[in-house]
């Protein structure tokens, strides 16, 4: 399943979550520093949030 983190494409196993996408993008440690994850509409999403093919998220 392809999803996008900060506009970068990453591939994860179907059923994996926001946390896995951040691992794939090498950005999970940014959350420890206090950054948060938002969907393409600007809504905050939790690390356990479900993803679908083509989901886009942004860490900021």
């Amino acid at each position, binding site marked *: 399943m392809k999803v996008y983190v900060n506009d970068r494409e990453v591939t994860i196993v179907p*059923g994996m979550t926001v946390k896995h996408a951040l691992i794939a993008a090498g950005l999970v440690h940014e959350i420890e520093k206090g950054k948060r994850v938002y969907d393409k509409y600007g809504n905050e999403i939790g690390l356990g*949030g479900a993803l679908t093919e083509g989901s886009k998220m942004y860490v900021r």
Partner: protein
Amino acid sequence: MLSTKIWTLLLSSFFIILCISPVYSQQQEIRILHVNDFHGFAVEYRPYGSSEMQGGLAYLAWKIDKLRSEKPSLLLAAGDMIQGNNWANLFQGKSVIEAMNVMGFDAMVVGNHEFDYGQDVVRERIAEANFPVLGANVTGVSELKQYIIKELEGVRIAVIGVVTDEVPVTTHPRNVVGLEFLPPADRVQKIVWDLRNRCDIIVVLSHLGFTGDMELAKKVNGIDLIVGGHSHTKLEKPVFVGTTTIVQAYEHGKALGVVEITVEDRQIAGITSFIEPIHPDPKVMNKTVAAIVDNYQKKVDARMNETVGVAEVDLDGKNVRLGETNLGNLLADIMRGASGADTAIINGGGIRTSINKGPVKVNDVYSVVPFDNYIVAIKLSGKQIQETLEHGVSGFEEEEGRFPQVSGLIFTYDHKSPKGSRIKEVLIAGQPLVLEKDYTVATNDFLAAGGDGYKAFGDALKSSKDYSVMGGTIKAEKLVYNDSGRWLRDVIIDYIKDQKTISPKIEGRIREGK
């Protein structure tokens, strides 16, 4: 004259009463309270990256009580309530249902993770619930209701429940054998047509995720409100798609969703929503729920001290970043066995401590693998396995956590050779690795997602044909096992319980040589 005055007074009074009467104005204020993706987080906690404690079921319950006392309300749960945290997992969700009964939930929809303990447990939890559990697009679980109709202040409210049709992707196939998860929009449309003339407000209680909710709102006419879950989205304000309002309240009981609805002449005249954050504050907690939380937490603590088996040797979790260890072998063997894969490759850094010879307690296993990891198995080519092992030993000098522990294979490496050409020989089932051949490799979800710099699993998935769900199981060329509903540590505990005694050895799976 006096009679005329009395009649005038009586008539005036009648009209005044008529004007202020709710029967005349037909306006009602009602409230819908909602949570989603609670995942058993009954005890307040400090989320990753946060500096403050959040959530706590007793505080959430107090807030619900307060808001419900102010106006007629419904309390809804949008799925994934009973699986995730130990507080729920150790009791297969029974603890959560007990608390929800006390909190007076009006309805809940099943989420994908409600199926993680198997169908028998789903049925047990539904039987224990004092509230209806919904799943209009699920076939094979007759205990699930398609919808309910509740009446608040004379306003008839239908609540239809639907869950993502990708449930089989997110749980082990054995949990959904014989079940079907139908496309939600078709089911909802049929029910809305049936209910529209019998109800004033139609609510869909959804576990589809925010994107799925928006698609549903676009496809189906006649839904007034979608109360969502699954994507753990924190919708601070309502989202409107046509005449449908969409709300969702984050995750883990860290927020309570509140929808305010004004009804006039049996139609929605106004609707708004907001999120009420939940923080621990002993002054504002529901003591009955607090007692349930404490009671089960004590059981969790006691469970941590339970002995699950006996280690006949010391289990080495200290040297897992330097070479083969018996604990690394044990865990890799368990993962390979559980998934039926040809081999297993895990990161030594995922093994956090050792276990001394003697009785093994639950807490010992939780300390060795404290992370919420689960088993995944993916087909890799021999070339990708070789690259994976090269990557694993490339951080040997720095004692990086990516050093591999393995099962079903033997490899020889020379740590003095340049990085990228250290692997000298790989044997699988006693035979030399064939670079062009595919092998199934079990690992944890962290490595499968590319953690510790492991890229081969992601590369393999990229080359996989599109996955699909057929007859309750995942069909994908490269993905052969995926059990996100069962933590690795629980698989290990079950294995040790089954074996009663364990005595893993160093067998020469990882050899230094030239």
